[in-house]
């Protein structure tokens, strides 16, 4: 598509026609949804228990282990403090070890999951911390086992806060998927980078922006609805 004119690389301003946008964007959108979906499944399965564990090994938790808390907290902080692009680049050998490749969706899922787990663990920990200690005392006095207390008292009470955090997390993961797009992971981010950025295709750029904004707005509204639904006070006082 490009031609050498006078020694410089010339990129023709041949924007993708509007009619062809769906054919280009829909599969990419599907890839983004798939990527974020897989990552979120992993994040929920690993991050939820990890967050509950982190909260309860902390001083004042159900089974205090200050040293374990310090180590876990430190690992998570490191994971949280690296910018995603750098995290992604720095764990390439690990990613290749796990998936056998360092490009494509599978390769993107590994760093996204790691960053996502670190993110979500903190969200869960934070949500549990906002549950009043008196609730946990009630559950203990009611004869609950640690597992029962964590499930019904701690997590049960924290559900709205966790879902609020989850909404933020999904949006962050959509953003990460776009960054992962730069290593050829596919998805809407990949399209935005290759067409919109490298080829100055304004039509595609604008289309991807619109899609991302709409998606994020939708996730936010859905998340808010969900939080409302699981909070009796908000749900019943709507009328």
């Amino acid at each position, binding site marked *: 598509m490009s031609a050498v004119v006078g020694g410089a690389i010339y990129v023709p301003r041949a924007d993708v026609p509007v009619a062809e946008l769906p054919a280009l964007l829909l599969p990419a959108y599907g890839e983004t949804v798939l990527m974020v979906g897989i990552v979120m499944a992993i994040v929920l399965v690993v991050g939820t228990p990890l967050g509950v564990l982190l909260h309860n090994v902390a001083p004042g938790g159900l089974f205090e282990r200050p040293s374990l808390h310090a180590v876990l907290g430190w690992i998570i902080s490191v994971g949280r403090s690296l910018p995603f692009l750098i995290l992604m680049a720095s764990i390439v050998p690990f990613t290749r070890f796990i998936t056998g490749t360092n490009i494509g969706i599978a390769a993107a899922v590994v760093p996204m999951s790691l960053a996502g787990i670190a993110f979500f663990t903190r969200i869960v920990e934070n949500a549990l911390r906002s549950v009043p200690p008196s609730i946990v005392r009630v559950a203990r006095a009611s*004869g609950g086992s640690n597992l029962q207390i964590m499930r019904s008292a701690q997590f049960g*009470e924290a559900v709205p806060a966790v879902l609020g955090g989850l909404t933020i997390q999904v949006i962050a993961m959509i953003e990460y998927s776009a960054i992962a797009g730069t290593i050829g992971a596919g998805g809407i981010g990949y399209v935005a980078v290759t067409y919109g950025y490298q080829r100055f295709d304004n039509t595609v750029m604008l289309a991807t922006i619109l899609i991302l904004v709409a998606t994020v707005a939708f996730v936010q509204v859905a998340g808010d609805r969900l939080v409302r639904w699981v909070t009796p006070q908000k749900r019943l006082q709507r009328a």
Partner: protein
Amino acid sequence: MISLLELTKTYGRGADSVTVLDRLNFEVGAGEIFAVTGPSGAGKSTLAQCINLLERPTSGSVVVNGEDLSSLPEKRLRAARRRIGTVFQSASLLSRRTASENIALPLEYLGVTPGEIKARVGELIDRVGLGPKAHSYPFQLSGGQAQRVGIARALALRPAILLADEATSGLDPDTTSSVVELLKQLRTDLDLTVVFITHEMDTVRQIADSVARLERGQIVETGPLVDLLTDHGSPLGRALQPRRGFAAADDGAATWYVTYDSADVPGDWIQRVSADLAVPIHLLGASVETVHGINTGSATLGITARSDEAVQAVLARYGLSGTPDARREATAGGVPVSLVRSGAVPALEGAA
């Protein structure tokens, strides 16, 4: 029945350690309501947590119906906790569960079948008079209703002991009274042993059979409520008396602080004292109530008499105890009483 033997709780180790409970001993019989009072930081909540086994005592023991619960291994502690129901301050209900679902919590933990849970919860809801509110969420309940849910939850596993830590604190007086009445009723019906922890003396007078005062981790005074209230020498008895403002005495009259000092003070004692002394008596302020069928309370009087001894002798004749200069007495009692003219209690002519 519950007894505490040399119960001691120390937080921290070595030089930083603080002994919050210092060798406490007391016994509460079945069907008895035992109130524990004391200033903030005295160790009341720590005592509650040692009794319901959320905290392990450093030494000493908590014996329930003959079994020492405090020395049980960790595994059996959870089962032991089920024998003590706890009512917490401001109920502490799970906000995402209805009243019924909150009451069901201990039953779920125990692994009771859904059918049995439903039946038992229905029973409990009726017991505490919350039928129409069974499916309300905590935010839809008043403070008193929430506290009733807390009481029902505490009773779910049919405990022998009911422990309440500031269960009525923060409720208005009427709601407090209704919660107190419920607890008294339950005590009678279920033969419960109740340990009722509060810093509110008014509530203690309403509910307690016996009272102990905890100060800096030690029980400084204890006894049956009526005995304490009718013993003018008891600091706890005095602290239990409500202190209200009173009017100033006329010029030349002494201000007397008089307490009911026996179980048989005649109802017309003011008139009789006035007649015996042959001087008018001004009623400047008073608070009298019946506790376990016995009149208790105190009155502040304005009396112009020749000698303090004469007044004291006449008061003693009717089972009363008096001190001249109530202003001094009020301060000595530790409760400052402002000398505002009380509009609510007008000065009355005692003698016709």
